[in-house]
């Protein structure tokens, strides 16, 4: 039995260091702590605060939402294509209001209420040419894209994404932006482009928590009822 050369031992030690990961519990707890730690001036107990939010949501935001059915930025009207935007509607309800991967934090009942109540966040309207300087800017921009999609304005969403794309998104938000673009193309009736982008998404971000949602836009064989363009899709076990 010979001794392992130092060179190989060294590589094995480095490999052991590289492969180590924190538990997802630790990551999720970090998110929870951060959310709770933000300075919120609370004059009322939490329940009263949420009751007030709920009342405000119903009483104030509903008429605003009704009034918001104007084109966001002068986008031309698109033909109503009768396509049910089921994937993103349900997904939006499931996940954070601004489309952050649901697996980044397990949704606790309290947080779920928070997310639902803040479904229409009062996102400050940024000037059209403001550069995306901070992470907060970037997530606010993506929130506006999502709002446009929920309002059924895919052209506006695509225009916002175009502007957003100049800031070169990085990290986990790049995948978010990618999925929103797929959804916008699909909602605009451009199934081919959505499918092509979905294909690229799946190969670029195979481990993203969003990959299953992107797969829903792949050219399907049978599921979506005749969208196929004849292309075979990888049978990776993902639901098509």
């Amino acid at each position, binding site marked *: 039995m010979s001794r392992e050369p130092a060179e190989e031992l060294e590589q094995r030690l480095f490999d052991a260091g*590289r492969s180590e990961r924190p538990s997802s519990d630790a990551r999720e707890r970090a998110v929870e702590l951060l959310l709770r730690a*933000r300075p919120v001036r609370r004059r009322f107990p939490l329940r009263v605060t949420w009751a007030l939010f709920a009342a405000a949501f119903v009483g104030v935001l509903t008429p605003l939402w009704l009034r918001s059915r104007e084109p966001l930025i002068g986008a031309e009207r698109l033909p109503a294509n009768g396509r049910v935007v089921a994937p993103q509607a349900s997904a939006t309800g499931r996940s954070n209001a601004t489309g952050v991967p649901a697996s980044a*934090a397990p949704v606790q009942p309290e947080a779920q209420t928070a997310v639902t109540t803040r479904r229409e966040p009062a996102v400050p309207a940024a000037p059209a040419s403001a550069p995306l300087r901070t992470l907060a800017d970037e997530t606010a921009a993506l929130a506006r894209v999502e709002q446009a999609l929920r309002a059924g304005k895919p052209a506006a969403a695509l225009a916002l994404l175009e502007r957003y794309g100049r800031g070169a998104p990085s990290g986990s938000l790049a995948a978010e932006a990618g999925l929103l673009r797929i959804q916008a193309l699909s909602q605009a009736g451009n199934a081919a482009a959505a499918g092509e982008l979905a294909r690229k998404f799946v190969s670029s971000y195979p481990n993203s928590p969003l990959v299953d949602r992107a797969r829903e836009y792949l050219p399907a064989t049978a599921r979506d009822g005749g969208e196929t363009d004849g292309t075979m899709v990888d049978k990776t076990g993902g639901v098509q």
Partner: protein
Amino acid sequence: MMADAALRALVADHFDFIWRLLRRRGFSPEDADDAAQQVFMTALQKLEHIDRGSERTFLYGVALRVSANARRKLARRREDPLELDLVYSDPQALPDRAVELSQARALLDATLRRLPTELARVLVLAEIEQLPASEIALLEGVPAGTVASRLRRARALFRELLQPPEPAPREGDDA
């Protein structure tokens, strides 16, 4: 105030990196969980004003400060002789190429502890996080040339520490 999505993205993008750094600075996995959370909490107030792309540098600085405070408590702890003995004692006793991951990490950490701290830091960033010298320079706040020379010294010293000492004439079991 930072939006939920921004906080979640921050954790998604940087938590693992910070956690591994803390692990290599001597924290057990559980302690690294707590320390990493503490790093993000400490950085929270300033984070929303940090320019996109600079968050990691900022978090890195906070992580070094958080771990420096904790390291003073760890300093008194000697390296576990067991890990070093795996290599330095009778070579015949070493399970050839069968060292468990946790043992490998323990030996990694024990050896890193024996380096001067600024050498250990660049070695970790280069070999474990596999960052280019330019990024290491940003994180450490030193010129790229300094990074290069520290890396050379770090690698040489680390390799030397992994070599067994000159075998002394020994009879039977080690003490």
